[in-house]
């Protein structure tokens, strides 16, 4: 394969559609006789529904139906996500089929009306009373504490050597507790589902990162064959993990449609997304690190507690980065969960690696001051020659190259080591850095490739575009695999009528789909070869030809061959197609496969007000071969921006008395605005990983990892104040004790 298109900063294939408003998102789908549904949600965190008074709502103008647990058709609760079969189960709560309330914001009624306004108004008229029970809402509450049997496929606890003993023996060490609050995703596109029944068949346009999961979920709930459910999500307006599984709105829209016998549109209000879509759970972690005087780590401990729900068992894998980053003879890593009466948490961009690197990389920074060793140098000293906990060889670790690249681009050498040593007038200036990391995950994938007699190709896989540029990158990949110009290739996605794809999650989609497309192209070779009953390819076996330049060419005589179009035209065929399903290989067991990066940050801090402004940010990444330089850069910029929000602004505030989230809107839950985001620079090493499809790694999540630590470390360098809980608000910074 010649990489003509791959790697180029190609414009998005759907860019024009998006910026002109022509792109159709889930909530923009319409049907004749469509009705609008609005949810009524619980105003307690735990208890039972005593009474739902719907009389006024039922009588309100335009109302078609009010559905409560008293009259809702029964649905079967599917298996939660992560089991043996594909599932998008978000929670085991039998929402609307129970009088039990499991969290504040749980849907307790649906109002369906002719217009959205009528439905909203009538929803306000529904009166619900409860028998309330005490709820567990914080990490320190009486919720059930569990040590998970496994975290994903890995052991919960990793113990190498004697970490506590080594820590005790050390004189140069840090032993501190770091906290991250609940965060919520806040994709600009609200969660929305348009559901239409046609007899026993169901079509949903959903804001989904996993259409096949939605299909499976709805088939189970409504007792249908999966083939009778079609889920579509060709364009999603941001997901970040919040649309990875089917939250209640996804199945309540079809439920409402079933009740009223009409197509139904259900769009959550922003506060309802906080209420009935999980966020990133609050986490408290202890990190202890010790080193000898030369900076070599002698002990590494990371242990802590993350919240989960009472109706799912989500575990945020915050100890995962420490398993692979640094050489250390004594490592102890473990984590536990506490079950809270809150909307159960879910994946949010780099679950685990994001909060995990905040704690680990903050602690390493603290250690660097004890050692009086430059933070970059400390990370050079502790470079492992094999995976520190599994012992596996690295597939293609280029962390040191990324570290050096970032340090050079950032100008790290201008940093003076002492805290508070780089003031600019009144303002304190600080430079900080942290390591970024994210695993290489690959999932099952399948694809169909069709070439036509007119010289074009269509490539299909039921994967997802949420803004990352999926169709663009896959078009480039398919174009190179087929040897066609990108203009001749169209990529179709986001539909369960297309070949199966997994969730757009774990930064796995690009290589999982690319592997399937590659296999489908290989299959296609045989299909087309059979049609070449005359000409230079006549009678050849597939092994004797290669796909190149939009056709098939003899491997023993590269000048001899024929284009797909020519073969098809002669055979009198309009097109030929092939499909392939690919499972991930054993590479992840054989190799330690991760992406790495180094995040560099410069802050200016007002010492009187405690306000922190990030004025410069550089991220340098080792992510294998980059498929599209433009969309890749956007992914890194987006991840880093989201990390800046985590570091300085974002926090879901919950009223401890009721469980109500009090800042459930974009004015009060602060995400960075343009004025908060400096010019961000993103660089990459670009060395292809020999053990991944296309030599690529996924890049959607690594950008956020390490950012919060880089900011916190820069803030410490500026002020001499260590803040171990994000966001670093003025009051937290001014209250932190000052060194130096």
């Amino acid at each position, binding site marked *: 394969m010649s990489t003509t298109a791959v790697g180029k900063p190609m414009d998005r294939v759907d860019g024009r559609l998006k910026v002109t408003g022509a792109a159709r998102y889930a909530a923009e789908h319409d049907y004749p006789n469509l009705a609008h549904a609005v949810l009524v949600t619980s105003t307690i965190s735990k208890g039972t529904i005593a009474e739902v008074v719907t009389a006024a709502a039922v009588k309100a103008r335009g109302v078609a139906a009010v559905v409560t647990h008293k009259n809702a058709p029964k649905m079967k609760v599917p298996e939660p996500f992560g089991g043996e079969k594909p599932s998008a189960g978000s929670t085991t709560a039998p929402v609307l089929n129970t009088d039990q309330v499991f969290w504040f914001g749980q849907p307790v009624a649906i109002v369906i009306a002719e217009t959205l306004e009528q439905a909203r108004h009538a929803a306000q008229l529904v009166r619900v009373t409860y028998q309330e029970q005490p709820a567990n809402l914080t990490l320190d509450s009486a919720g059930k504490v569990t040590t998970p049997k496994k975290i994903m496929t890995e052991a919960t606890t990793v113990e190498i050597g004697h970490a506590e003993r080594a820590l005790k023996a050390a004189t140069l060490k840090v032993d501190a507790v770091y906290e991250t609050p609940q965060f919520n995703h806040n994709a600009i596109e609200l969660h929305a589902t348009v559901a239409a029944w046609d007899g026993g068949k169901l079509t949903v346009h959903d804001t989904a990162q996993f259409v096949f999961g939605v299909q499976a979920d709805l088939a189970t709930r409504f007792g249908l064959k999966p083939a009778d459910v079609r889920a579509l999500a060709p364009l999603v307006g941001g997901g970040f993990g919040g649309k990875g599984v089917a939250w209640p709105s996804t199945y309540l829209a079809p439920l409402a449609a079933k009740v009223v016998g009409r197509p139904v549109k259900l769009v959550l209000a922003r506060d309802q997304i906080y209420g009935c879509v999980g966020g990133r759970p609050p986490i408290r972690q202890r990190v202890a690190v010790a080193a000898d005087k030369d900076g070599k780590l002698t002990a590494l401990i990371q242990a802590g507690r993350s919240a989960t729900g009472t109706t799912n068992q989500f575990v945020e894998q915050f100890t995962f980065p420490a398993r692979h980053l640094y050489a250390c003879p004594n490592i102890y890593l473990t984590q536990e969960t506490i079950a809270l009466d809150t909307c159960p948490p879910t994946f949010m961009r780099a679950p685990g690696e994001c909060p995990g690197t905040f704690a680990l990389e903050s602690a390493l920074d603290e250690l660097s001051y004890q050692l009086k060793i430059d933070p970059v140098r400390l990370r050079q000293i502790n470079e492992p020659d094999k995976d520190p906990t599994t012992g596996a060889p690295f597939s293609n670790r280029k962390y040191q190259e990324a570290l050096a690249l970032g340090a050079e681009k950032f100008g790290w050498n201008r940093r003076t080591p002492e805290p508070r040593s780089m003031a600019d007038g009144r303002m304190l200036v600080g430079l900080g850095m942290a390591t970024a990391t994210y695993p290489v995950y690959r999932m099952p994938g399948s694809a169909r490739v069709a070439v036509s007699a007119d010289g074009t190709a269509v490539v299909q896989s039921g994967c997802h575009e949420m803004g990352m540029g999926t169709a663009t990158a896959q078009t480039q990949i398919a174009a190179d695999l087929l040897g066609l110009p990108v203009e001749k290739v169209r990529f179709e996605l986001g539909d369960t009528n297309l070949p199966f794809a997994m969730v757009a999650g774990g930064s796995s989609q690009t290589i999982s789909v690319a592997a399937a497309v590659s296999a489908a192209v290989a299959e296609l070779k045989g299909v087309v070869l059979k049609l070449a009953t005359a000409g230079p390819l006549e009678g050849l076996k597939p092994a004797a030809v290669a796909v190149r330049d939009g056709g098939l060419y003899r491997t023993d005589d590269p000048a001899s061959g024929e284009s797909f179009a020519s073969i098809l035209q002669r055979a009198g065929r309009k097109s030929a197609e092939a499909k392939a399903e690919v499972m991930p290989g054993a590479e992840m067991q054989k190799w330690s496969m991760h992406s790495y990066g180094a995040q560099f940050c410069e802050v200016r801090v007002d010492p009187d*007000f405690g306000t922190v402004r990030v004025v410069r940010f550089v991220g340098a990444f080792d992510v294998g071969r980059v498929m599209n330089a433009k969309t890749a850069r956007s992914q890194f910029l987006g991840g880093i921006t989201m990390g800046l929000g985590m570091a300085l602004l974002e926090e879901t505030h919950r009223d401890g008395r009721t469980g109500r989230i*009090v800042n459930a809107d974009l004015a*009060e839950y602060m995400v960075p605005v343009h004025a908060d985001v400096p010019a961000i620079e993103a660089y990459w090493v670009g060395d292809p990983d020999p053990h991944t499809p296309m030599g690529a790694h996924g890049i959607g999540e690594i950008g956020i990892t390490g950012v919060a630590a880089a900011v916190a470390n820069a803030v410490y360098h500026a002020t001499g104040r260590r803040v171990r809980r994000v966001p670093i608000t003025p009051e937290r910074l001014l209250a932190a004790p000052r060194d130096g």
Partner: protein
Amino acid sequence: MTPFDYVRADGPDAAVKQVVARPTAAFLGGGTGLIDLMKLYAERHDLLVDVSRLPMDKVEATEKGVRIGANVRNSDLAYHAAIRTRFPVLSEALLSGASPQLRNMATVGGNLMQRTRCPYFRDGHSACNKRVPKSGCAALDGVNRGHAVLGTSDHCIATHPSDLCVALAILDATVRTTGPKGERTIPFADFHRLPGDTPDRETALDHGELITAVDLPALPWATRSHYLKVRDRASYEFALTSAAVALEIADGVIKQARIALGGVGTKPWRAAEAEKALVGKKPTPEAFAAAGDAALAGAVPRQHNAFKIPLAKRTVARALAAAAAMPG
């Protein structure tokens, strides 16, 4: 939102009559606050009388002062030459608020009527004496990081969110109205009420009384005035603390001072004692710090907002220092 009627007023008198006739009617200006609150069920009105097209949209600058029509948009006022040169504090306050899009819609009259960001008021559901009299105050022992430390009561600690009003508070502004009892003027200091035990009554206006203009008297030394806003986010965010200040300095001595605070008060907070403390003093960091202390003398913190007290003191001191450094 609750279903409502909408009418476009032909003139101020007609608008007043239309609102007076319906107990839950309201005037609609730029709509940047009211419509949100209606969607949240924090406000319910059965009639909106749109006054945004009434000809009250002029800024008239004379030697005696400036008359600002109630319908003047925030962005137009902020960039008006007379405001920028004669009252820089007002221009700065306006431009520190909201976003360009919102400033293009929001009106001066509406800004005077801006309501609190208290989440328990806005959620349309929690106990809130402001929204439902005698229902209690969920903010007192709730999440109250954003709440007021000055002018609070046992019934309400909601912060007045306006930036513009903090600047108006130091400029001897007068609010001109027309209402069921005819026209009148209200000194700005009397326009907003303290919550006391009736936090639902936020202003001196009667039902159906319409703001027509805001008058600013000539204040030659207001050329040395400044608005400073401290907030979590660099833009598009309400103040944690803010200060509007003006100084008259002659022969190296402060002759007159004006100080008002935002983000910390239940109304735009004029700090008269702090002003008095500066008169006759040299413009030094010590004097400005003392003024900051005096301005927050009566502050009462709750669980999450105690940090605002030292922050507000520093905000006042920094704003005064910046004003002192301006050309007089």
